[in-house]
């Protein structure tokens, strides 16, 4: 591909899918600092998913099919597509094989693609390789290495703020809105309504509503279409919701260390560490494990979470499997029954 410098204001498309929910604030800041305009695909809908289902192979998992749909919708509207190859985002860990091959799958399947910025993000051996990915991406927009570095630093700073907001209990979309608002005023951490919560104990405090933990890949639970708005529905049912992303990293790592062998998937490590923590933390009255049909890592970690939950016995667990055929009615019936059980058990504990 010819890496000619593009004009200022060229459009970079980012699909609202996969690790958008973890890294978008950083990506956006980076490209905007370099003078590009960032275009995100709209929220997931039935037609976005249908388009993805048509493009992707039948055996692909739901999140990949959905991502294909988002990309197909973006393809004609932007000058570049940013689809980093997320090989590894932590030392000695991967994400999932499909993330390793994702840009190639897209390139061979989705028609009418603009140039794809598919830089490798690979921190498997060394953390400092993160910058080299952004350095590559920056070359599309400027010849100035210093400018790219500054944009990268700025992106990292925003990412840090974003992660703090997540840990404080904001859902990704809320946290992103807050960041955008703050960016309008001034970039300073003080602009956020944060109470500096850092330890695992703090997040479990608060009013005496029943608390349900939702554990699942970010692109499944935070996409309100795919998850059928489970998080909102739980909140409306009077339940306090906590997700794996609100558990601080050291707690996750310490809990996951109980496994006989270190897990080599970053996202699963977070899910399993958080789930183990929720199972004995006391405050959590129900655990909802959300997975998509055919998810490879979840088939293994889900099994381990299930076994641990059954052995512990104190916290009821609901396994929810989502796919493109999931019907709302079936999911809600199961969710209601699960909530009834959580509240019933909660009531009994109070009387005893």
């Amino acid at each position: 591909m010819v890496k000619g410098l593009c004009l200022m204001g060229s459009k970079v498309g980012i699909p609202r899918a996969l690790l958008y929910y973890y890294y978008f604030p950083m990506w956006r800041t980076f490209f905007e600092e370099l003078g590009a305009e960032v275009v995100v695909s709209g929220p997931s809908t039935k037609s976005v998913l249908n388009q993805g289902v048509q493009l992707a192979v039948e055996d692909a998992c739901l999140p990949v099919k959905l991502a294909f749909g988002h990309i197909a919708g973006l393809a004609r509207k932007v000058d570049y597509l940013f689809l980093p190859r997320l090989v590894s985002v932590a030392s000695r860990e991967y994400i999932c094989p499909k993330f390793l091959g994702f840009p190639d799958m897209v390139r061979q399947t989705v028609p009418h693609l603009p140039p794809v910025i598919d830089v490798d993000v690979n921190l498997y051996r060394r953390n400092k390789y993160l910058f080299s990915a952004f350095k590559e991406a920056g070359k599309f927009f400027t010849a100035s290495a210093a400018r790219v570095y500054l944009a990268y630093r700025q992106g990292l700073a925003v990412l840090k703020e974003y992660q703090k907001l997540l840990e404080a209990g904001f859902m990704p979309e809320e946290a992103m809105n807050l960041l955008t608002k703050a960016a309008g005023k001034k970039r300073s951490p003080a602009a956020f309504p944060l109470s500096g919560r850092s330890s695992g104990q703090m997040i479990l405090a608060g009013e005496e509503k029943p608390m349900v933990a939702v554990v699942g890949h970010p692109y499944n639970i935070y996409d309100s279409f795919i998850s059928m708005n489970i998080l909102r529905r739980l909140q409306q049912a009077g339940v306090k919701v906590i997700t794996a992303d609100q558990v601080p990293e050291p707690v996750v790592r310490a809990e996951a260390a109980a496994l006989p062998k270190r897990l080599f998937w970053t996202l699963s490590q977070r899910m399993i560490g958080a789930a183990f923590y929720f199972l004995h933390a006391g405050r959590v009255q129900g655990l909802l494990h959300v997975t998509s049909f055919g998810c490879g890592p979840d088939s293994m970690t889900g099994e381990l979470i299930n076994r641990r939950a059954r052995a512990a016995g104190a916290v009821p667990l609901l396994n929810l499997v989502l796919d493109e055929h999931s019907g709302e009615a079936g999911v809600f019936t199961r969710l209601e029954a699960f909530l009834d059980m959580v509240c019933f058990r909660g009531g009994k504990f109070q009387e005893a």
Partner: protein
Amino acid sequence: MVKVTFPHMGHMWLCVKAMLEYLGVAVVIPPPSSKRTLALGARYGPEFACLPLKLNLGNFIEASALGADTILMAGGCGPCRFGYYAQVEHAILRDLGYRYELVVLEPPERHVGQLLSRIKTITGNNSWKRVYRGIKLGYQKIRAVDELEREAHRLRPREIVPGSTDRAFQEALKEIERAADLEELAAARGRAGETMRSVRIEERDVLRIGIVGEIFTLLEPFANLDIERRLGRMGVEVDRSIYLSEWVNDHMLFGLIKGLRSRRDACQAARPYLKHFVGGHGQETVGSAVLYARAGYDGVIHLLPFTCMPEIVAQSILPVVSAEMDIPVLSLTVDEQTGEAGLMTRLEAFVDLLERKRARKNVEGRICFG
């Protein structure tokens, strides 16, 4: 004394058994994978786990009934699920009440001493020199078995008496199995080759199909419903993208043995379509399809277990390889629901298609040059 068992993968048992018995370790070979094995694995394994895990689990349950108390497994560091198989299988077995010791051979986390001490738990008081000779015996047996398999692939579509190749192959395998050390193995190899040569064949114009995909489904006849023999009986000569000896050479012996086909060539050939490794054999699958097309094969069959992550990446890319290199590709996903009739129908249709394609090409050739 410990009684060691390990999961089935094609003829691997023959080599591991030779290696362990050479070192004086008691070995329990699980009964060959069967419907019962799979039913056990599917009942107790995670629903969305891939087929190999379920078969492994079934193997261990069946081996336990024969007195096995220690599992020898390979491991890995991802991103393919196989790297975590042993731990999940062990947890399931423990909850079912099976008391198994688990020994996982995998790249050490901290230092090489970890791996060596794990090997020592199996090999006991054998000297490292003897361990080396045991490994060499096992490896030579794999080489011998792979040679026989290749020969069987060539003979089957050309045999005059149907079934004669299979009978000779089974007999030859027994020769190899009986050899207790390297000297005996050399003689056994000669006799096995003799047996294979006794199969009467006639020269025919046969179709050639390359089989690519995930290693376990490629190597384990029960998992792929014996696809090589079925195709052979339909008059197709097959080749596999992975033979066990090549895999061992690439992954365990650091490519020390020269002159074998290597994964490097396949990965190189895959680059225009799939630039990065994706775990498992995803990149090799794409690359091997390219190599088969270049070598003039008539078609490619892609085998993968249901939900296999690396192979799904390959599956998404293979249609482009097929179109650009003009080689038909058939993807076959296998799991515990796979039925024989469905598979046969698809194989027959695919072979029909290849035959027509070849006939058309021959006619075109005659018009142009005749």
